[in-house]
């Protein structure tokens, strides 16, 4: 180690690796991964979320999964929790929709209304 900057660089890289273990208040993307969700295609959605968070290097975001959210006919479901905001539930998700949600909602703060539960009849 020759400088503090070198150390800081290693730290920054390594932070991404262990960040998930910190208690944090940031945004959470939760994918419903019960049997109904998985059979409706939740896995690709989850993978897309993980991939997108990785490529965009979004440090404060936790991607996690949960069991049955309870509206099986609209699976795959994704919930987004942002601090100080109402929970947003997206329904009938796909990998591509997930990427758009991350770009528009997570990064730019604009809810993608057409995918939300409120927009389905």
């Amino acid at each position, binding site marked *: *180690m*020759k400088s503090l900057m070198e*150390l800081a660089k290693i*730290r920054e890289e*390594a932070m991404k*690796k262990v960040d*998930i273990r910190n208690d944090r208040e940031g945004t959470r993307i939760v994918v419903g991964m019960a049997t109904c*969700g998985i059979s409706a295609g939740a896995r690709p959605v989850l993978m897309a979320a993980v991939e997108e968070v990785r490529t965009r290097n979004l440090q404060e975001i936790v991607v996690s*999964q*949960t069991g049955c959210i309870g509206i099986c006919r609209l699976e795959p479901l994704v919930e987004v929790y942002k601090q100080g905001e109402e929970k947003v539930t997206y329904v009938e998700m796909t990998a591509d929709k997930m990427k758009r949600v991350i770009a528009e909602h997570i990064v730019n703060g604009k809810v993608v209304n057409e995918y939300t539960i409120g927009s389905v009849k």
Partner: protein
Amino acid sequence: MELYRSHVLVCGGTGCTSSGSISIEDALKTELAKHKLEKEVKMVRTGCFGLCEAGPIVIVYPEGAFYSQVKAEDISRITEEHLLKGRIVTDLLFKEAVVEDQVRSINEIDFYRKQKRVALRNCGVIDPEDITEYIAFDGYKALGKVLTEMTKEELIETIKKSGLRGRGGGGFPTGLKWEFTYKATGTQKYVVCNADEGDPGAFMDRSVLEGDPHALIEAMAIAGYAVGANQGYVYVRAEYPIAVHRLQIAIDQARENELLGKNIFDTGFDFDLEIRLGAGAFVCGEETALLNSIEGKRGMPRPRPPFPAIKGLWEKPTLLSNVETYANIPQIILNGAEWFAGIGTEKSKGTKVFALGGKINNTGLLEIPMGTTLREVIFEIGGGIPDGKAFKAVQTGGPSGGCIATEHLDTPIDYDNLISLGSMMGSGGMIVMDEDNCMVDIARFFLDFTVDESCGKCPPCRIGTKRMLELLDKITEGNGEDGDIEKLEKLAVNIKASSLCGLGQTAPNPVLSTIKYFRHEYEAHVYDKKCPSGVCQNLLNYVITNDCKGCTLCKKVCPVNAISGEVKKLHTISDACIKCGACVDKCPFKAIIKQ
């Protein structure tokens, strides 16, 4: 860089390893492969989480789900349900992690809530075999800061101001030690870490080495800079194979990353570390005996003064501190002396790690701010006494410490309070005793240990403790005479005053403190020939009560045919009884009692 959506932390401390965490890792690897989750879920082997009672422990992040007493067979369910489908397997969680059907994360569990983890902050959080994980949690930042921004004087002043005192037992102010070694004349100086951990009930030093070895390396390098040493030694007992292994890996990684070696942080500071193995003798934890042992001599103490700070290893000025003491150093540098001094009591700053054992629900390792009361530790963090039994005493300080009785449970824990109660902080062993423990027997147990471990160099310790043990044997065997208790007291005082090292100077403490708080138990043994707790075999008899149904089971199990009686008639026990207790365990009607 791989990014995982979930981390599964498997405890790889000695406790969980011996209860099977390796087979859990294997099962997890298989299951993750089976479900093709290897790229999404990362397995990390960490150091000790502290709640050894509940081991093997597995924690799943980001939820912080705390699985306890996990078996290899449980892994397929955890994988299929939790990792794949996101449903926490509640029946496998630690019992306190589920409250009113709500799952609580690890930080919300009682055992952890009252703790403050400074020395143990990374234990159970990082992979100890990966230096980058330590760096991610601010590792080596303190060393960088010290080398590039602080003078030696500023650094020593910071440690002095923090109020940190030695965690190895004595409680000597660490900053002063640094200053003495810094000011000592000589070009060659050394820093040494005492990782001998001789108290058989303590395992915090082992946990730091196993769970966060880089914290020790970083701290020793900082200390080396402060006192002007470029070589350090860690003296650790060979009985700690996992700790030795991980420490060696950590030293190698630190060298690869040029955090040990020449010209660290391009500041011209050189520092390197080596491990020295000890054979596991209690006396080798005493600092001068330890230094002799490193030099290849017999591990026997030498007179002090001169203190190691003036004449230590190979007669050179040497800074010698305990593992836990060192583990606090990087945090003090990063957060400031004021932060550290803000924790704890007036004369004891910061936190202390205790190894809680004996008759207690949550056996394990915990770190609390100084000033927490014994009651909080035992009844809140420790979860109280099992099986509804009554608390009797707590033994602190290991073989050098003493027993503290119920009336002092509300004492805030710090160095000075424990000493004034006739015990001491020691290295942090804490053994809880309930109504079934005989205090004379406990004192005998500890003295038996010190008699064994006395190095024999000075007569008061070699002969005096042996005489005390003989008196205790006599008393517990039912041959105690009027005056024996007083003899014990007199011997104790003399041995304390005249022994060469701390071993002899503290060896009588378990006896003195139990006489102080439980004299009536000694008297019952000596004068009434009774052991009130029913422990001392020679002082009790087994008798069969009228609850006996004459089932003959006891008669069959008795190895010496001491029980007689006909079927369906009351049985009796004769003098041939060897008091082995086999009949008590066998009797379905609880009709056999000790008197």
